[in-house]
């Protein structure tokens, strides 16, 4: 036993060598290096896992968004989702967003119009449901909901009307009004159906409400119609301002306003009258040439020199002037050049001549006459010539009339086809 204990002591006393300091530090350095690298790797692992977490959360968010948006679209597009439905609040929330997204007045008008129609559709759906309800309490509740929807529909149509009124561009406003009028008709149909249902259910309050709503709808339709008429009047005023001629009769301006896109018939009439007038022009050209020759002969006899520029263009080249005549004025009427010439002649003519009534001589179309005005100013003989050649004074006055209003008077007659016949009558008289 002693030997065994001694042996154990010997074994316990065996040398226990220690790691050298340098070797120890070297190992420590390796360990620290590895720790740093592993921590860096862990950080990168964390970032990778972070990305994964982000991706997974993004995917979850997308799923939620898709589900939510799908439900929202379903709720938004389904007209059967009426008050009392679990998704109705979502539908209204979507509509609020849509109303806020409508920035321009035409969009606002259309959006509110759409909402109004929707409320009425929902009301119709509710009224159909009301018919199947057995309990009076439920019927009363549904009736209340229907009335509420109708009130909202009226409020929406009011908002739409105010949005339409704020549209500055009259063309756009007209387009929106037309759309709204058509849709209003549908809404009135819905209201009629609701009224029928209410009558069956003997719901007098609802019947009254529907009547009230119909009255409001019709009122808006009427106001839109009136607005259109007002717009036409505004157009006439604008045209007056543009022309700057306060003397211009309203009839002419009305013609121009009628020429606007709404009226097609007047333009067709104008075309037919143009053709007739061209024919007349062709006929008149020969006469005009003859008359211009006469005028020149008179000038030569009396020694009066007239510049070619002073002679109206129509007389020199009637066909050209006809081509250059403005669209508003009838094509057979004198061109702008001619009107200028007429003005110069008008200034050169005696006031007595200018003061002659325009409607006295109906042959207003004849373009030849203004040339005779120039020689008239100089002597009494010219007056005699005037009497001998009555074409000259009449044309002078008539040409001025054309520049101002004579055309339109003629245009009115043209509608009846009198104008050409007048011209012929004049020539016959001549």
């Amino acid at each position, binding site marked *: 036993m002693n030997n065994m204990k001694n042996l*154990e002591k010997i*074994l316990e006393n*065996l040398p*226990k060598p220690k790691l050298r300091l340098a070797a120890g530090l070297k190992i420590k350095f390796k*360990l620290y290096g590895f720790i740093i690298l592993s921590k860096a790797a862990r950080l990168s692992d964390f970032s990778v896992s972070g990305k994964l977490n982000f991706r997974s959360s993004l995917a979850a968010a997308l799923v939620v968004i898709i589900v939510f948006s799908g439900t929202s679209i379903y709720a938004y597009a389904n007209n059967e989702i009426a008050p009392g439905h679990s998704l109705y609040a979502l539908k209204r929330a979507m509509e609020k967003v849509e109303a806020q997204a409508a920035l321009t007045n035409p969009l606002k008008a259309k959006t509110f119009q759409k909402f109004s129609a929707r409320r009425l559709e929902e009301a119709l759906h509710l009224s159909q449901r009301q018919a199947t309800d057995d309990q009076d309490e439920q019927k009363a509740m549904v009736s209340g909901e229907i009335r509420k929807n109708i009130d909202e529909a009226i409020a929406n149509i009011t908002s739409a009307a105010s949005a339409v009124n704020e549209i500055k561009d009259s063309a756009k406003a007209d387009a929106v009004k037309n759309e709204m009028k058509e849709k209003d008709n549908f809404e009135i149909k819905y209201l009629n159906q609701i009224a029928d249902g209410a009558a069956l259910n003997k719901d007098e309050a609802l019947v009254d409400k529907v009547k009230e709503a119909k009255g409001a709808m019709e009122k808006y339709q009427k106001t839109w119609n009136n607005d259109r008429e007002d717009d036409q009047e505004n157009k006439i005023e604008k045209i007056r301002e543009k022309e700057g001629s306060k003397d211009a009769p309203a009839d002419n301006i009305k013609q121009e306003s009628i020429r606007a896109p709404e009226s097609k018939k007047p333009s067709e009439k104008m075309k037919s009258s143009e053709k007739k007038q061209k024919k007349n022009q062709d006929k008149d050209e020969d006469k005009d040439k003859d008359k211009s020759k006469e005028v020149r002969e008179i000038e030569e006899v009396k020694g009066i020199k007239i510049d070619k520029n002073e002679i109206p263009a129509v007389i020199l080249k009637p066909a050209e002037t006809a081509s250059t005549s403005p669209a508003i004025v009838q094509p057979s009427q004198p061109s702008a050049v001619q009107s200028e010439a007429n003005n110069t002649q008008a200034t050169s003519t005696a006031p007595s001549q200018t003061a002659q009534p325009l409607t006295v001589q109906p042959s207003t179309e004849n373009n030849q006459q203004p040339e005779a005005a120039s020689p008239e100013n100089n002597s009494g003989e010219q007056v005699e010539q005037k009497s001998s050649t009555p074409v000259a004074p009449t044309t002078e006055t008539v040409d001025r009339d054309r520049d101002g209003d004579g055309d339109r008077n003629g245009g009115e007659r043209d509608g009846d086809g009198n104008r050409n016949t007048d011209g012929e009558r004049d020539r016959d008289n001549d």
Partner: protein
Amino acid sequence: MIKKKPNFVFYYNQFKDKIYAYFLYRIGFDRKLAEDLTSEVFLKALKKFDDFDGDKPFQPWIFTISRNHLINHYKSAKRETALTEVENFLPCHDNRAEERYELERVMKIIDGMEEGDREVLLLRYVQGLDNGEIAAVLEKEEGAIRTRISRSLTKLRELLNE
């Protein structure tokens, strides 16, 4: 109450000499190789440190790693040491020459013993592991380790008496 697992460097500072000595005795006192093996073992332990259960003792765990690493080293390289450097690790007391001679002799005898006996004796008396820890390292029963140590001591004594 969950204990917080200490830092690995703490364990390193605590066991680096024991592991170094373990290798030194097992590879014929080749200092450089022992240092390299110590370094490799601690790096391997560090890599597996996340798997280490902090509630359990660290010593059996690091010695298990060292043992396995040594077995792998034996497989890859022949044992070339001839205990030439044993003297360098013996205490330098001139007045105790007899004791010095006896330690050198014991070390040489142990080095010549069977692997199992040598391992048990070194773990028990040089590295200072108790029977339970040795059983954990060698993955054997504690009683078997006790018996094995007793038998190994008997063998060593017989060898010393020869």
